[in-house]
């Protein structure tokens, strides 16, 4: 069959009808493709129609989002005057561009965390550790918040990393289900065993592909002030029901009492 040979059915319909038929077929094809893909995606996710967890508004899985860290090169040692008070008092941490080390607190385990803007509150904490394959462990249940125990506790100098599940294997939303809804400027409150109450203010909320996880930005930051990271899963799932992304909230300490 060559291209210019009239097709066998060309004689049983006029050109106008033929065009119409082709148009309808294309439209039907498009609808079927969309329906098919949507059904497959939902079927594979197993959500029977419920949407996935909220994603950061401005986010998108940005790939090379490791903010370069200032502070390399010849730096001065932190001047004592930049650390105004010793005990947890009403402290205002210095502006983010400050040189040197801002004020910080001693180590103390968190006893509760709340994010008022998304109605999250938990007082169930577990320790997260590096496993033999080099990856970090995750909490056993969807209501626990894990603290990376080789990193700072909230309030110490550097980023304290807390992670929790977005949902359970049976589809029940986890404690961090709505983490992607958090906005810059929102606050995260942390109470600690030493009875201090810390307020962290959110700087950024982003989603990253797990294969491009911003390890430096999450675990190191600029390491000159107390910070907190909240991590959960997000994005589409694959056929093994593994989420593609991690949603990360970046915040820094703005008040301690």
């Amino acid at each position: 069959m060559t291209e210019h040979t009239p097709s066998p059915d060309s004689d049983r319909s006029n050109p106008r009808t033929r065009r119409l038929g082709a148009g309808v077929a294309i439209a039907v094809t498009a609808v079927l493709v969309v329906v098919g893909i949507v059904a497959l995606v939902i079927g594979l996710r197993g959500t029977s129609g419920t949407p996935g967890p909220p994603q950061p508004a401005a986010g998108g899985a940005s790939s090379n989002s490791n903010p370069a860290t200032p502070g390399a090169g010849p730096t001065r040692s932190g001047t004592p005057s930049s650390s105004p008070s010793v005990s947890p008092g009403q402290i205002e941490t210095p502006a983010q561009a400050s040189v040197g080390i801002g004020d910080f607190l001693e180590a103390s385990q968190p006893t509760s965390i709340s994010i008022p803007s998304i109605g999250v509150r938990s007082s169930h904490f577990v320790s997260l550790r590096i496993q033999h394959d080099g990856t970090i462990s995750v909490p056993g249940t969807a209501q626990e918040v894990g603290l990376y125990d080789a990193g700072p506790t909230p309030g110490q100098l550097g980023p304290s990393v807390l992670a929790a599940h977005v949902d359970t294997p049976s589809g029940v939303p986890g404690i961090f289900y709505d983490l992607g809804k958090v906005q810059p400027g929102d606050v995260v409150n942390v109470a600690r065993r030493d009875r201090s109450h810390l307020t962290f203010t959110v700087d950024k909320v982003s989603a990253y592909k797990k294969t491009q996880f911003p390890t430096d930005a999450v675990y190191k930051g600029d390491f000159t002030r107390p910070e907190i990271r909240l991590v959960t899963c997000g994005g589409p799932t694959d056929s093994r029901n593994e989420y593609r992304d991690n949603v990360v909230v970046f915040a820094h300490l703005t008040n301690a009492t």
Partner: protein
Amino acid sequence: MGTTTTTRIAGASIAVAAAMALTVGPAFAAETWVSANLKPVAGNGVDGSGTAMVEVTGNSITVTMAANGLLPDNPHAAHIHFGAEARHECPALSDDTNGDGHLNTTEGGPAYGDIVVSLTKTGDTSPKSGLAIDRFDTAPGGKLTYQRGSITVSSDVATAISAGQSVVVIHGVDYNKDGKYSGDTKSDLDKSLPTEATDPALCGALHVAPAGGMHTGGGFAADGLKSGGQNEALLLIGGGALLAAAGTGAFAARRARSRA
């Protein structure tokens, strides 16, 4: 369809594995960093804590460190320790070989090795400055802050630090709570100093950060799919719709071609 999906998943798994291998593997000239939680040394009675972070670029390191709960206004020698034969960790009470209930710097050796970097505020940073008391932070109010870049180390030391095998130790304790370094017991490092001046106060092994992302999705495990019902129905509908689309698509293509 099934084959394509499987291939793609396999590809993704390989990509993940490769990414992890890259992250975990030892870094040479590349920039790496490690961090530590500083905790009280066993037996030495310091109610303090701290954090430290060391960036390694070639043979140059930058150290950022903060601690509290130290004896105020007295010099606190601080070092990075490493020993090829050491355990790359902080000492335990079982390292108290002289049985006095405290750990001195030498007793900690099997755990953390020798001094490889002296965290002085100015001047030399080699092991020779290990007890350069006038050049260490004095922890005003019990709080120590330290930040210094361009500290040159040997390739072996750079490699050891990058591999997570070094340990940060801040020295200087006050057993008798008199507010100064005192007491009859002399330092194991320098007989002209009381042991309080050199005994380790806070210690933390410098670890490599966890590799890759976090598996924080419950992600609707297999039981949801096995149980059939809506999931399977949706899969059937989806597959059916796509098959039908293939059919109508072919029809449309044929129509379109016939028009040409």
